[in-house]
């Protein structure tokens, strides 16, 4: 088998550039930082930011369509590459005001971020289980490190160890599942596995077992019940920029791979899994909704909120139609903006320490009307209140699901949970506007942070009122899964 190098770079152009950027960052750190582990990392951070923005801009020049045995660059892959690059840029924005709190490895943080993003982009182009496994491990192993990034804080290190144990365990299940899929279909390639699956009347139990184990592995990434147990602790313990990246990136990785597997690999045979996915979706919604109510820690709260969003994504996955696939793509983008804004506000209000108790946002409306407005927008969007983008995302998911008669109960249940979730998002708003401030220190908002917050807030507004461009992009992205 010969490798067509130019085709390879056409497919993996983004990944090659990210790899190059990472290496340049390491060298820059060695030259500028003179090998010191502490001290400001302005050069590395600026370079990483510039590089990521440039690659993000360049990704809009790319045309989907390049396809080879080693990977694929369909419009779906391209959509998610842009998404992951945007997530990385936003994470750097969240990390900038946080940098003072990292005693070590300030320059390595952007580098690791670039390498995880590389893994995520690789996953969106994955065409076979080998690339899938290696890409997934690249993402998770680097995220382990980023979660334990402040080893002097017991909470961070505990989050790291918990994440490592659960992540490695899910990887072991995944490899075992992949072995069975391989053994019963004779290939790692998605196209061939799909051909074998859809040629058979009913799947052999061995193949079902393999697929189930792979789903278990991906369920961990997505944070679906019963594989969600790591989420609250890791979200709380990890440094806030890592949590922000984890909440959007890791979830999106689970989404990308589940969509590829359910829509492309299983294809029509996925109809047999609707009940399983719908059951998981209902449980996840319930767990996320009930778990969020007693929380008093902001990041933990957003963890549970993320679990219920994973539930909504599972509702869309269970639906299995082109409309629901488009809805998922729209959903993750709105989630990105709302979540990044919320985490950046958390970084700012926790100022120099890492106490993220909900008391910190009490009376925020008086202390900084701008931050209060941003957080309000983001909470209302996460809750799914019109006219914000999150409302339209939920609406698209449920509209697609209601077309399926077997899922009407699930739609009703999701609506119920969405209304319930309003309660705890409104509790946050009550703290912002009705309570007196506990912490009265000065909130420092740098120009860059202000810009990012403004951007996120505008996006949440704009996509809520004028959805058409994003809907079109999402539908174009999803369509390539159904060829």
């Amino acid at each position, binding site marked *: 088998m010969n490798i067509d190098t130019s085709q390879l770079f056409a497919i*993996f152009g983004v990944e090659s550039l990210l790899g190059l950027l990472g290496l340049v960052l390491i060298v820059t750190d060695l030259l500028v930082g003179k090998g010191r*582990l502490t001290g400001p990392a302005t050069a590395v951070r600026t370079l990483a930011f510039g590089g990521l923005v440039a690659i993000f801009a360049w990704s809009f020049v790319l045309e989907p369509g390049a396809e080879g045995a080693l990977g694929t660059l369909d419009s779906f892959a391209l959509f998610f590459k842009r998404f992951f690059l945007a997530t990385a840029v936003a994470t750097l924005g969240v990390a900038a005001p946080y940098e003072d709190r990292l005693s070590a490895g300030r320059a390595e943080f952007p580098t690791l971020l670039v390498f995880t993003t590389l893994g995520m982009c690789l996953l969106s182009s994955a065409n076979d289980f080998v690339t899938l496994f290696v890409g997934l491990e*690249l993402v998770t192993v680097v995220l382990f490190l980023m979660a334990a990034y402040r080893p*002097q804080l017991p909470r961070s290190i505990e989050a790291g160890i918990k994440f490592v144990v659960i992540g490695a365990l899910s990887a072991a299940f995944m490899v075992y599942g992949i072995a069975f899929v391989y*053994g019963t279909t004779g290939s790692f390639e998605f196209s061939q596995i799909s051909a074998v699956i859809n040629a058979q009347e009913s*799947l052999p139990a061995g193949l079902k077992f393999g697929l189930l184990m792979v789903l278990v592995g991906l369920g961990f990434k997505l944070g679906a019940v019963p594989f969600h147990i790591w989420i609250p602790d890791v979200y709380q313990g990890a440094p806030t920029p890592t949590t922000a990246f984890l909440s959007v990136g890791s979830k999106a990785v689970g989404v990308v791979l589940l969509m590829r597997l359910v829509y492309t690999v299983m294809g029509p045979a996925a109809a047999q899994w609707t009940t399983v996915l719908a059951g998981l979706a209902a449980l996840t919604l319930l767990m996320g909704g009930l778990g969020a109510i007693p929380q008093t820690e902001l990041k933990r709260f957003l963890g549970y909120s993320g679990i219920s969003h994973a539930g909504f994504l599972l509702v869309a996955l269970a639906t299995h139609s082109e409309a629901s696939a488009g809805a998922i793509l729209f959903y993750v983008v709105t989630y990105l903006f709302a979540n990044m804004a919320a985490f950046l506000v958390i970084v700012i209000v926790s100022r120099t320490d890492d106490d993220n108790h909900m008391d910190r946002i009490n009376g925020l409306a008086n202390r900084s009307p701008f931050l209060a407005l941003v957080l309000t927008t983001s909470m209302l969007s996460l809750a799914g209140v019109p006219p914000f983008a999150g409302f339209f995302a939920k609406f698209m998911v449920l509209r697609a699901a209601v077309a399926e008669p077997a899922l009407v109960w699930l739609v009703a249940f999701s609506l119920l949970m969405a209304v319930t979730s309003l309660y705890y998002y409104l509790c946050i708003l009550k703290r912002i506007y009705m309570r007196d401030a506990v912490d009265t220190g000065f909130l420092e908002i740098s120009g860059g942070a202000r810009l990012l917050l403004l951007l996120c807030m505008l996006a949440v507004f704009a996509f809520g009122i004028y959805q058409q461009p994003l809907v079109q992009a999402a539908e174009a992205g999803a369509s390539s899964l159904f060829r």
Partner: protein
Amino acid sequence: MGDALFYVFGALMVLFTFLTIRARNPVYSAIFMILSFASTAALFVMLDAFLLAAVEVLVYAGAIMVLFLFVIMLINLRAAEHDGLRVSPLVVLVALTFLLLLGRGIADLGPVPAGANELVGTPQLVAKTLFTRYVVPFEAVSILLLSAILGTVVLARRSGEA
């Protein structure tokens, strides 16, 4: 003869694995695990995966287990776990459910697997596949190892400033 060896090494692998998870002393566990990996390597030879058998001994039994032993020695983990193993109904339930699913899966593998084929895992053959069909994941693994080094250096520093 060859068939009998499968059962010998298979039994050894199960036995050593059992001893690994059972041993009170972590150092014993590590030693048993090396033996378990050695049995696996023997089984790889019986499957004609010669290169993998060598890698299993070199990397798994060699590098990875030495790393484990090193850490066990470094943090002086001689003290056995004080209250022994954690056995709960949940453990039994999870293990039994898994075994049940697995048993059903193995009993029905579908039409694809056939009899043993002629495949011999020589270095040439494996390397050729690795560097053509799977060159992309290969490069990804190199990035993974690089970032693992980078991150571990940050974590492993003596925490001078709190």
